[in-house]
C-alpha cells in the first residue's frame, strides 16, 4: 500500500479511521483487534506505536501506551506486527518523533520510514512534529511513498493551515477541540468552525479528538468532514474487556456503530452553523 491508498480510502464516501495502541495488551491481540475493526467498517487503521512520553494524549491512551510498553512492545515488534496483518485497508502509524530518530543508526528518520514502508505502513502521524520541523521527515516519506499526515488544531491560524497543507499528504487530521485525545459526550462547536475555515483541497479532512458515539460520527460528517477518527473509545474497550475475544467483538460492534453514524449523515445536509462543504 502507498500514500495514495490512504487518500483513496476516502474516495467512496466518508471514511472511518479507528485507532488502537499496538501491543495493548499483546501483539497477537492487536492483530485480532485490527481485523475486528476492519470487519466493523474501518477504512483506514491508525495504529499507535507507543512512546513513553505521549504529551498529545489524554489519560485513556496514556494508559493503553503504558500497558503496551509494559507488555514489551518495541518499534521492531511493531513493524513485525504490521507485516503480519492480513487486512486490505491502509495502516497509518501514529507515534512520537523521538522513536523515529532513534530507529537505526544515528540521528535521522529515513531508516524508520524505509523500514515502515517495507513492513506495509502507508502513512505517519507524528503529533509532536509541527510543520516547521518536518522537512527531513517529509523528504523521507516522499522517497518511500509514505503519507505524512498533519494535525490542524482549533488554534491553527489561516497562515499555518496553508503551510501545513503545503506539506501534508494522505489526509488532514482535524483536531476537533482543544487539549489532548479522549472520548467525550458531545461534538465540540470548534469542530464546525474548524471545518468551515479549511479550504477545499485535494486531501480529505478527517475529524478526531473526542469521538465516541454514532451521533458524533453523523454530526461530524454532516459538518462537512470526509472522515471520522476515533481512538480513546476503542482503547477504553480494550482496557475494560474481560478477554481478547470479548474485546474483538466489542470493537467490531463499536466500529459498526460509528460506520452507521457516518451513513446516517445526509450528504450535504448541514447542521448549524452552516458549513462550506
Amino acid at each position, binding site marked *: 500500500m502507498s500514500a495514495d491508498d490512504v487518500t483513496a480510502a476516502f474516495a467512496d464516501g466518508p471514511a472511518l479511521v479507528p485507532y488502537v495502541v499496538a501491543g495493548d495488551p499483546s501483539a497477537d491481540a492487536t492483530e485480532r483487534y485490527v481485523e475486528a475493526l476492519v470487519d466493523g467498517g474501518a477504512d483506514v487503521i491508525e495504529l499507535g506505536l507507543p512512546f513513553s512520553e505521549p504529551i498529545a494524549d489524554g489519560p485513556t491512551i496514556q494508559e493503553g501506551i*503504558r500497558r503496551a510498553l509494559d507488555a514489551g512492545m518495541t518499534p521492531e515488534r511493531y513493524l513485525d506486527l504490521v507485516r503480519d496483518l492480513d487486512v486490505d485497508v491502509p495502516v497509518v502509524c501514529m507515534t512520537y*518523533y523521538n522513536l523515529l530518530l*532513534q530507529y537505526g543508526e544515528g540521528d535521522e528518520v529515513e531508516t524508520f520510514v524505509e523500514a515502515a514502508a517495507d513492513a506495509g505502513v502507508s502513512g505517519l502521524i507524528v503529533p509532536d512534529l509541527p510543520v516547521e*520541523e518536518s522537512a527531513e521527515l517529509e523528504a523521507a516519506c516522499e522517497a518511500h511513498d509514505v503519507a505524512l499526515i498533519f494535525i490542524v488544531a482549533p488554534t491553527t491560524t489561516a497562515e*499555518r493551515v496553508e503551510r501545513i497543507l503545503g506539506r501534508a499528504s494522505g489526509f488532514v487530521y482535524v483536531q476537533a477541540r*482543544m487539549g489532548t485525545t479522549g472520548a467525550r459526550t458531545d461534538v465540540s462547536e470548534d469542530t464546525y468552525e474548524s471545518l468551515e475555515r479549511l479550504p477545499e483541497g485535494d486531501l480529505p479532512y478527517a475529524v478526531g479528538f473526542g469521538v465516541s458515539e454514532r451521533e458524533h460520527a453523523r454530526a461530524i460528517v454532516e459538518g462537512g468532514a470526509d472522515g471520522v477518527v476515533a481512538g480513546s473509545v476503542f482503547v477504553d474497550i480494550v482496557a475494560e474487556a474481560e478477554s481478547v475475544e470479548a474485546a474483538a467483538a466489542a470493537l467490531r460492534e463499536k466500529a459498526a456503530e460509528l460506520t452507521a453514524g457516518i451513513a446516517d449523515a445526509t450528504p450535504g445536509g448541514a447542521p448549524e452553523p452552516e458549513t462550506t462543504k
Partner: protein
Amino acid sequence: MSRRETAADAETNAGASAGKFGRYGGQYVPEVLMPAVEELTDAYERYVLENEDGFVDDFRERLRDFGGRPTPLGRADNLSERYGIDVYLKREDLLHGGAHKLNNALGQVLLAKYMGKERIIAETGAGQHGTATAMAAAYLDMPCEIYMGRTDINRQRPNVFRMRTHGAEVNPVTVGSGTLKEATNEAMRDWATTVENTHYVIGSVVGPHPFPTMVREFQSVISEEAREQAREQLGGLPAAVIACAGGGSNTMGAFHEFVGDEDVDLYAVEAGGSGLGVEESENYAPNSASLGTGSVGVLHGAKTKLLQTVEGQIVESHSVSAGLDYAGVGPELAHLVDEGRVTPVNVGDDAALAAFHRLSREEGIIPALESSHAIAYLEAYEGDGPVIVNVSGRGDKDLDTVIEESEKRDLDEAPDMEVFRA
C-alpha cells in the same frame, strides 16, 4: 538585557524552525500549541529583547525590591585554604525563596501579565520552581496551578505547603514514576487545553523555543553580576566557573556572560547518582548525567541530549537531589558541550552529600543538594584559581533527605547522626 545574544534570538523567520543551537533546540510541540509558542516568541522579542513598555526596567526593579538582588559574591576562606586556590561563591541561595528559580519565575509571570494572560501554570520537581512561581504569581496577583508528581509531593512536603500558602493549587500527577518528567507532560497537556488564556512557566532552559533562550535570558543576571563582581573583587575574570546542571537553568545563568571569555573554563556538574549508564532492561538510569553521557533525541519540545533506551523510550533518571533528577537537559548547554566550550563532569550522590556537610561546617552555608554537586566538584578540580562556584540554592528544603541519606552512609563529613535516631 544582556548584550550577548545567540543566533537563536534572531532566527524566528516564518516557515523555518526557530531557536536552534547547532543541531539542538527547535519546537517539537503539538500543533495546538504552535500559535502560542509563536505568540510567546513575539512577546519575548518585544518586551524582553527590545524593552517595550519598559518591561526590562520593571523586571530589574522587581528583582531588586522583591527578589533582593544583587546577590553577593563572597570568598570562601576555608575552602580556599583547603584547595589552595581562591574559591568564590555566588550566593543565589540568598535570593528570595532560597534559590535562583525566582529570576526566571518572576520574569515569566511578569511577561505573562504584560501579554494579558489570565492564568499561570507550571511544573515542578523538587518544588523550588513551583514555589518560586507561586510566590511570583501571588506577588503579581495571578491565579496559579502547579503540576507536581505524587512521589515528589510525598518527598517535598514543605514546598507543597509553601505553594499552597501562596495561594497556588497543587495538582498531583500520579502516572509513571510521579516525578518531574510526568509533571512536565501534564503541564503541557493543560497548556494544550487552555493556551488561549494561560501562560506555562517552564522552570528550566528546556522546552520549545523560545523557552530555552528566554529562561537563560532571565537567569543570565547571575553571570552578569558575577562577572562585574569578579572584576571588582578579584581584579579580573576567574579561571573557571562551576555550576550544577539538571535542566540547566542555573548553569546557563552562571555561564552565559562568560561564554565569550575564552580563558574562563566552564564546568557543568551533573548528578552521577549511584552510577553512570542506562540500565536498558529496567528503563532506568541510576544518574541524571544526560549532558555527559546521554544521546541525541527529542523530549518536551526540544532536540537535546537525553537518557533513553536504544529504542528511544525515555528512562527514569535518579539523583539524591530531586532538582537534578531529569532525563533531559537544555539544548543550548548540549550545544556548548559539543562545541567544547563547556566541560560536562559528574558527581555522585555520596560526594554530593559529603559536600553538603563540608560547606555547612566549614563555611556556615547549608547548600541545596543540587548546589552541593557543584561544591563537590572542587575535590576533583585540578585547574587554576580563582574559581566561582554557583550556590544555586539553600539546603533547608533538603534536611529530611540529608538526614536519611547520611545515616545510610556513615559519612566522615556528617555530624554524629545518633541524635536524629529517635
